[in-house]
């Protein structure tokens, strides 16, 4: 069972049988379940999963229903990662004692969490898991806001975004702090594999997930998840927004191996101005008023600077 599942093309991938079920209560057009499907379909091995509190958890485990066809646990807001880490530690211990009932199964340990449960509330727990070096994967569904509780800002919310606790208006342009660079933080933990992925680039994403499942040690995956409710766009535009996010380089797709080696995994053929990404979402609507237009220029400069930095890091191999 433990060999890597072959995914040559989309037709071959479509023969996978989903282990995440419909009639969950996620909004129509939510990118969360697209990400979850691509992660779960990347392997045929048994899975031990957890979800921290967030949209994904409250929508897929509404009593008396579950949408998960694998072992899945939810405990608290912060400790989804440690729950999986505990299961992994027990699996290792039983394996050392030779007491596993099915030693050849080779299960994969994956925890899902939103950006709130990873960047803010669960940060200490994730840091602990990575420091202890559990053989697990932590997948962040990064929608840049606490969407489950009504759109409060998180430390992943980007500058200029209007959230309920940082609303835009006459005197404020919304969120004033820049997004936390979680990728660099997790790479600094010495993680063997850290990657930023987006579900619209499915092949890139499946490759990253499969690599992450193969390496020994804690793996961090940051998946961009467009939120139709809080980013304020029509549900059918989810994939168009995801495309804009990757092609404007607001979410550059890259990986960091062993905490140092940085590779850019996707280079858009035509880089689109950031303005188009901002214009497509209601949460940035106020930036197009004369008063706040200077912020769009700042956005572009910031994105360009980040892309420059990534390219230099890739070239320098440090």
């Amino acid at each position: 069972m433990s060999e890597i599942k072959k995914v040559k093309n989309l037709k071959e991938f479509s023969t996978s049988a989903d282990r995440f079920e419909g009639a969950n209560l996620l909004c129509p057009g939510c990118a969360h379940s697209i990400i979850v499907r691509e992660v779960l379909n990347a392997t045929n091995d048994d899975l031990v999963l957890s979800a921290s509190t967030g949209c994904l958890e409250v929508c897929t485990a509404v009593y008396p229903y579950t949408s998960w066809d694998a072992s899945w646990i939810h405990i608290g807001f912060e400790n989804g990662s440690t729950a999986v880490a505990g299961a992994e530690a027990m699996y290792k211990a039983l394996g050392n004692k030779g007491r596993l009932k099915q030693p050849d199964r080779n299960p994969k340990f994956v925890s899902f969490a939103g950006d709130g449960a990873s960047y803010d509330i669960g940060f200490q727990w994730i840091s602990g898991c990575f420091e202890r070096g559990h053989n697990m994967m932590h997948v962040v569904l990064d929608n840049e806001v606490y969407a489950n509780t009504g759109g409060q800002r998180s430390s992943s919310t980007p500058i200029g975004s209007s959230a309920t606790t940082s609303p835009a208006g006459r005197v404020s342009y919304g969120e004033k702090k820049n997004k936390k660079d979680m990728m660099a933080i997790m790479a600094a933990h010495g993680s063997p594999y850290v990657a930023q992925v987006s579900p619209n680039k499915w092949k890139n994403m499946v490759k990253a997930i499969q690599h992450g499942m193969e390496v020994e040690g804690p793996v961090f995956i940051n998946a961009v998840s467009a939120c139709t409710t809080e980013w304020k766009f029509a549900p059918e535009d989810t994939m168009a927004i995801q495309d804009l996010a990757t092609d404007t380089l607001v979410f550059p797709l890259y990986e960091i191996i062993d905490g140092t080696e940085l590779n850019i995994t996707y280079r858009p053929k035509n880089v689109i101005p950031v303005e188009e990404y901002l214009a497509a979402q209601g949460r940035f609507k106020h930036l197009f008023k004369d008063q706040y237009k200077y912020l769009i220029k700042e956005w572009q400069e910031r994105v360009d600077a980040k892309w420059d930095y990534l390219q230099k890091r890739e070239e320098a191999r440090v």
Partner: protein
Amino acid sequence: MQNNGWDEFEIGAMLRSFDGVATDIALKQPEDRNYSSSNSFTASVADWRIEKPLFNKDYCIDCQFCWIYCPDMSIIARDKKMVGVDMDHCKGCGICVEVCPTNPKSLLMFPEQADEETELAGWPEKDKGEK
């Protein structure tokens, strides 16, 4: 299944996705699985829809973009072929129609009460692109 009130179930509830022994679920398509009544597969969100996608297989090229980008596991693909839409779990978001690359599209949104046969008969012609 007995439906308990909000204060009647035990703290720390466990739900089983399948009845009986379930191994190698990743290799079994839904029709071969023994779903339990607490699996959300047995529930339906069809009443969320105000528009439904209809599938015209005459134009489909089986690219499977709709399958990979469907957030509700509602595109049924078997043996690399697109078979149809699972109307019990489709929420009518319309992503499948947006990502469909054929001309005319092989998936289109129609009002929920639209009749499938009439709509399939009156499917739009190829859009040649106006200059």
